[in-house]
């Protein structure tokens, strides 16, 4: 279908994101939500960046379940990855997205950070549920992942290259994400 829509002479589509050859329902919804989350919450209109943020998040978040990460690997972009998507994003979306996981909270202080950041968590789930925090870089690569055994811990970021990172907390059935910006004062001083 992708080729027919792309090559339609009088209309059709400007780009298609599709499976090659076919997908799985659970993964589809995950990919759609990550794609739209990147596009709406981060105001990312670059098709390639939104597409790959979704792929990276789903692949990195499900490394041992090929029913989930397999279809994400197969998710293929038929179109120009540098295309700027023409979809208006207004200001009302941010507030709506904030309570997507009311059952858990994740904060990072200070943010931006330099050598260390304190990550603090709270969850409505019963103690003893498995909680884990994962840190991804801007390309979606998993940088660190660790079990959460306290309400907070200090993460050393001195070895992290300066940039934007994604923090993802999973507490029982709840997940929440937060952005972390790392910049190094020493580098700035130079």
């Amino acid at each position, binding site marked *: 279908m992708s080729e027919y829509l792309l090559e339609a002479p009088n209309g059709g589509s400007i780009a298609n994101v599709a499976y090659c050859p076919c997908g799985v329902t659970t993964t589809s919804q995950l990919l759609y939500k990550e794609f739209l989350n990147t596009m709406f919450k981060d105001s990312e209109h670059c098709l390639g960046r939104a597409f790959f943020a979704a792929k990276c998040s789903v692949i990195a978040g499900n490394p041992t379940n090929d029913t989930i990460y397999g279809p994400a690997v197969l998710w293929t972009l038929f179109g120009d990855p540098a295309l*700027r998507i023409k979809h*208006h994003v207004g200001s009302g979306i941010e507030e*709506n997205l904030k309570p997507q996981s009311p059952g858990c909270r994740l904060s990072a202080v200070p943010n931006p950070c330099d050598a260390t950041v304190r990550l603090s968590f709270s969850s409505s789930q019963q103690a003893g549920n498995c909680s884990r925090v994962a840190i991804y870089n801007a390309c979606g690569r998993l940088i660190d992942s660790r079990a959460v055994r306290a309400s907070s811990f200090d993460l050393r970021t001195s070895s992290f290259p300066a940039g934007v990172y994604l923090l993802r907390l999973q507490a029982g059935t709840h997940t929440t994400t937060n952005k972390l910006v790392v910049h190094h004062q020493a580098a700035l001083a130079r």
Partner: protein
Amino acid sequence: MALVVPLAAGYLITTPESLQTNGADYLVITHPDFTSALYPLCALRESLGHDVKMAEVNLIYSTFPTGARTDRIRAFMEQVYAHWNPRPEFVLLVGDACRDSTHDDFVPVKLFPKFSYDYADGLTEHGADNWYATLSGADSIPDVFIGRLPVNTLGDAESLVTKIVGYETSPDTGLWTHTTMFVSSDDRAPDGVELESLYFKPNGDSCYVVEESDGSSAFLRHKTVAGFNQGVSLVCHSAHGSQPPSWVGSKTLFSYTDVDSLTNSGALPVVLDRG
């Protein structure tokens, strides 16, 4: 905006040495049949601030002569990722891939044994451009943003490039940039409802919904065509794919034969296609 393409734009790489050492943040890998169609797209990307280079697969095959054609393209990508400065952030493959003899295999795709889940029709392998983009580490996470224009003729390439350039250079106005279409089979309709409530309604978007329960196949196909033609900027397909190409539940919601009825040339959507 008219794009003037210099005759000696210098986008096309013509020597093996320039494949080995170069720099671009937007790289086109194309079959030579389509090269001439791509200059307006290269000029557009350059006008938007990209460093653009274009490489033809025949030069890649002769410069990296070991293995299958997919391996040679992969070897080129590894060279690019390791030694080009800047190295590409965006990679565009131009040319369709075909694993049988029904079409030409212009830019091949790597085939892998299937994952553990069941594919429709008992397929035992899959192809993924993702392989060309996983250049760092031993994971499946792509390191560059890769896409493909699956064209089979020079005319297809020219038409698609004209679409992209027109899309990017026209004003961002019109209700269509605030409108999303959902096409859902009955069993997938809740997925569309969730996306609508989470993203589109709060954004103030108009949502055009085609659900299997709306009517007969003929009605659904007509409604989907009407949705495209009224103008939407995103299409979220939450039904199933089928052969010949169509979006289906227990009824047909849209078929490849309906594409000829589309007249939305001024309002082209990005389609999230589940099928």
